[in-house]
């Protein structure tokens, strides 16, 4: 059911929620977290849809915070959706006028007691997520660097502002690639001498993967530009040839390895709902992300096409 409240207060919203729950037949409060979405009218539909899909795995109360007309008089409008598309509850909160600057005063009383809070900025990330009024309420803050105008610059900003609990969809998108690369290197392999990540320009995920590989493997990594979609290739130079995972169509990857048959594996790009579901799975600080981000900020990543590797004398024979 949907309940619309105009010019209302959080107290009235809480009452309406309790009443709705009672009328729907005593649904239990099985919600595992509160998800605050900081969005606008344009982005809210997609964001709420993704959140509702993710709520099937993580039943939650969704608070969609929308700021409207900052010059108008202060007013709070609420749209409450309960027992509809997804488990849990969705509140669309529209804040007019100066109230928009005090969104935390609206969100705080509506948090589900006793469970974690996650704040998600599907569009523009704030300078310092952990200091944003709605970020302060959360132990997990999710941004999306790819949504920014100049994604690489955003990564630098995020790196400087990093606080434990920060995470970014640019990093979430890297998981399938990182999984495949880790599985590849589970096999005994020749010495890796250098590596390269090829992707569209302005792809923060590619930058993060390159920084991660550089950090973990201790080899020089290069970031070069291709036509996409997304990341198209990650390769390693070894004394016996090249180990590479390439994905030209955004769906299927080919693993090539010196003197072995090429192997195919599915590696599709994921929907926002899947990214969000992954983020909500673990709410503790992601230390590997923090280290990767720090490495990226400190050292940067070499760009340009890869050169032929120098013959390596350290090769064990």
């Amino acid at each position, binding site marked *: 059911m949907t309940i619309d409240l105009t010019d209302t207060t959080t107290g009235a919203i809480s009452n309406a929620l309790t009443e709705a729950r009672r009328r729907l037949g005593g649904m*239990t409060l*099985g919600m*595992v977290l509160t998800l605050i979405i900081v969005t606008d009218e344009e982005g809210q539909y997609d964001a709420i849809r993704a959140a509702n899909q993710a709520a*099937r*795995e*993580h*039943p939650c109360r969704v608070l969609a915070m929308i700021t409207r007309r900052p010059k108008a008089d202060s007013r709070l409008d609420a749209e409450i959706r309960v027992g509809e598309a997804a*488990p849990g509850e969705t509140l669309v909160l529209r804040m007019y006028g100066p109230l928009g600057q005090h969104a935390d005063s609206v969100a705080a009383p509506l948090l589900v007691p006793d469970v974690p809070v996650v704040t998600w900025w599907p569009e523009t990330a704030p300078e310092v997520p952990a200091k944003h009024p709605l970020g302060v309420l959360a132990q997990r803050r999710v941004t999306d660097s790819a949504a920014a105008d100049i994604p690489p610059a955003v990564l630098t900003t995020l790196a400087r502002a990093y606080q434990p609990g920060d995470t970014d969809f640019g990093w*979430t998108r890297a*998981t*399938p690639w*990182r*999984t*495949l*690369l*880790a*599985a*590849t*290197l*589970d*096999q*005994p*392999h*020749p*010495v890796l001498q250098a590596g390269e990540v090829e992707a569209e320009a302005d792809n923060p995920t590619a930058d993060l993967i390159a920084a991660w*590989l550089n950090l*973990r*493997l*201790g080899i020089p990594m290069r970031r070069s530009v291709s036509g996409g979609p997304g990341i198209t290739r990650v390769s390693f130079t*070894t*004394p*016996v040839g090249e180990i590479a995972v390439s994905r030209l*169509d955004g*769906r*299927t*990857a080919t*693993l090539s*390895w*010196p*003197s*072995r*048959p090429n*192997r*195919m*594996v*599915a*590696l*599709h790009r994921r929907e926002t709902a899947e990214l969000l*579901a*992954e983020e909500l799975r*673990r709410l503790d600080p*992601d*230390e*590997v992300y923090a280290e990767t981000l720090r490495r990226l900020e400190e050292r940067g990543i070499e760009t340009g096409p890869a050169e032929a590797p120098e013959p390596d004398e350290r*090769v*064990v*024979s």
Partner: protein
Amino acid sequence: MTVPDADARGPAPANPGMIATADDPVNPLRDPRDRRIPRVAGPCVLVMFGVTGDLARKKLMPALYDLANRGLLPPGFSLVGFARRDWEDEDFAQITYQAVKEHARTPFRETVWQQLAEGMRFVPGEFDDDAAFDKLAATVRELDRERGTGGNYAFYLSIPPRFFPLVVEQLKRSGLSDPSISGTDTGTGRPPWRRVVIEKPFGHDLESARELNNIVDAVFPAESVFRIDHYLGKETVQNILALRFANSLYEPIWNRSFVDHVQITMSEDIGIGGRAGYYDGIGAARDVIQNHLLQLLALTAMEEPVSFEANSLRQEKEKVLSAVRLPTDLAAGTARGQYAAGWQGGRQVIGYLEEEGIPPDSRTETYAAVKLGVDTRRWAGVPFYLRTGKRLTRRMTEIALMFQRAPHLPFAATDTEELGQNALVIRVQPDEGVTVRFGSKVPGSAMEVRDVNMDFAYGESFTESSPEAYERLILDVLIGDPPLFPRQEEVELSWRILDPIENFWAEYTKPEQYPSGSPGPASADAVMARDGRAWRRL
């Protein structure tokens, strides 16, 4: 760090810079703190016998697709089907395609399917046909060459146990079972592995279980035999361990000082369906109690393992299974029944003896209940009641810990008339979750205490993405992670518990008829009534 013996693997690999070996698992990309990266199986071929069966079509193939879709299968993963059908690779792929479309849990993606289908082969033949197995051997070796599967083979025997000797012997004869005859340089620098997966029933008594084990054991070492009990792959069953050992709330009361008795139930609403050939002569106790219910009992009653390593977990389970005691009077402590015609779930259904393929004088039970004791300090004097049956009121599997009543109630007797025993119920299916039952005051001016439920619906909210039991188990086989698979010792211990009961039943009793759709035979209620207890309502 040991360097693999190059001679043992044939010609030296053209890989002068090989650094990592099987004994050197350190992969710099893996970090225990990095929990986003899941475990992925290494390169391998899965050879499936009995691909035309129901299980393969409804569960195994869809589970493989779901694994592929989640990116958990290795690049080049290949599947070989073996069955007595005149099929080509394409026919096999087509049948699998339909099975996957119909039964897969995750959304269907053409590209994932394409990648899986490329690695699918079919070998037609009888189990006694040497040529067919030679062809099978040639097929998997070709896959090694074409798709880089590294000479690692898992054999899934989704076939009746009477064919095991034949198939296992054939695997040996054709050299498929021997990892040292790889036929091709695997190029991975790691000795290839062989694993064999067998489904229940693991025999029909202690002796046959041993025979079966000897057959498999003669060809495959114990650590490469994976016995699948799909119940153990279920999220809720694994949650028993989390519930017990990750919380401080339950452990203090998880013993004889607080628990009055434990009821473990698996009831089905369906009859035997088309399984007459298998079911008659086996019966409910062998079909369900020996494996599922005794495993649930073991997980509920065992002590805390020192770690979740396969060995520690199995040791604890074996300890508790070896402490299980039968009632001294088997006639009073057990019951069995056979469903008669009646109405179940709004449909008129026939009785067991009228089912097609069942002899009219069959003494096979479709309902079994037993009372067991666990002779440990923790459980002495706490009975465990296990029951299972077909065509009962509804489908349900649960473990219920019934707590002792409070020793003194400072209320008037009438206030607590409706207060039952506190209970902690772990619901395994359907609607997986945990329920805590306790007394609460009824609103109003009078002090009246009544039972209420506090509910955690594991299933309902989380299932959308929680993997099917078979997905988890197949992945564990391909990775080689054994904690969820019962070992031969556990199987033998279970038979030791059940055999005396089966012998007693065979000699002295005839299953009591119970109407379809009822909660079971009256004799089962009598087992409880003798102890002053009652079964939980189905």
